[in-house]
């Protein structure tokens, strides 16, 4: 086993050991954990399974197989970041709607209070 393979395996394991407890403790919701876990296991798989990595590298036209792992990692990050943008956009839309609803409700409450006092 080459040193680089050992580093890759340890790296993937660390990554999974970081993510899995967070999912377990519900600090990352399952719907957002799917991408993280999928790529974690994919990285581990190709770190352990040397022939698979070589096949993947050949398929992608990468000369040095461990670089294919990096490519996989960059792809994973890109996808996860895109997912974040989608989630953030959805959240800010909801916050705007909530703020508007709260404003309208506060207005109605004030009007009701005024009427009750009379």
């Amino acid at each position, binding site marked *: 086993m080459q040193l680089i393979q050992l580093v890759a395996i340890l790296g993937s394991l660390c990554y999974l050991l970081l993510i899995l407890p967070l999912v377990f403790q519900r600090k990352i919701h399952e719907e957002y954990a799917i991408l993280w876990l999928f790529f974690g296991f994919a990285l581990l798989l190709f770190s352990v399974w040397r022939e698979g990595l070589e096949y993947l590298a050949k398929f992608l036209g990468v000369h040095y197989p461990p670089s294919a792992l990096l490519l996989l990692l960059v792809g994973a990050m890109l996808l996860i970041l895109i997912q974040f943008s989608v989630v953030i956009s959805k959240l800010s839309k909801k916050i705007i709607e909530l*703020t508007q609803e709260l404003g*309208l409700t506060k*207005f109605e409450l004030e009007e009701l209070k005024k009427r009750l006092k009379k």
Partner: protein
Amino acid sequence: MKILVIVPAYNEEEAISDVIKDLKTNFSEADILVINDGSRDKTSEVARENGALVLDLPANLGIGGAVQTGLKFALRYGYDIAIQFDGDGQHIASEIPKLIDPIKSNVADAVIGSRFLKDSPSDFKSTLGRRLGIKFFEILNTILIRKHITDNTSGFRAYNREAIEFMAYNYPTDYPEPEAVILLGRNRFRLIEVPVRMKERSCGKSSIFGFRVIYYMVKVTLSIIMTALRYRIR
């Protein structure tokens, strides 16, 4: 006919009382709703003292979110016409009838008050740089909705009931004016412009300056193109 004037205001304690007084004297048939967009000054108190209805938003949403709140209010309480009227003193209450006449005679669903139409009496037409930006939107929007709108950034607008119902749920949030034009045009609302007079703001300065000008142009252009490409929703 129930008419609502929506006045979005963010930190406008100095301008807001004159705006409300102008509306009360020169356009008394409408209810005035000030949307206090999370101001940190006394905008809300001053508006209340002057006898306007005041809706306080707990956080600053920006002009789009504030106007949309007013449209939701108009929808909820059955107003037939909603008018968007800036809280900084640029708009003139006695010009409102020009804006709502086409709606009353049912020739338009949405009306924009324009400084740039040929017969526009407005002596205040913004600075050269801003006029260039406005010209750019004029060309872009004309191509995209095949309708010639000269003052896409004007925040002096009137909507009928149908447009209120639509915009209450589809109003754009960030720098919304040029995008709203496309949205209305694309969704087959009858959109027209009328020439109006506007003033230079009495105090404060535009929220769009420095690098924000670049951000504004890029963001609004992107939104406009995306809105034009999306499916019609009405």
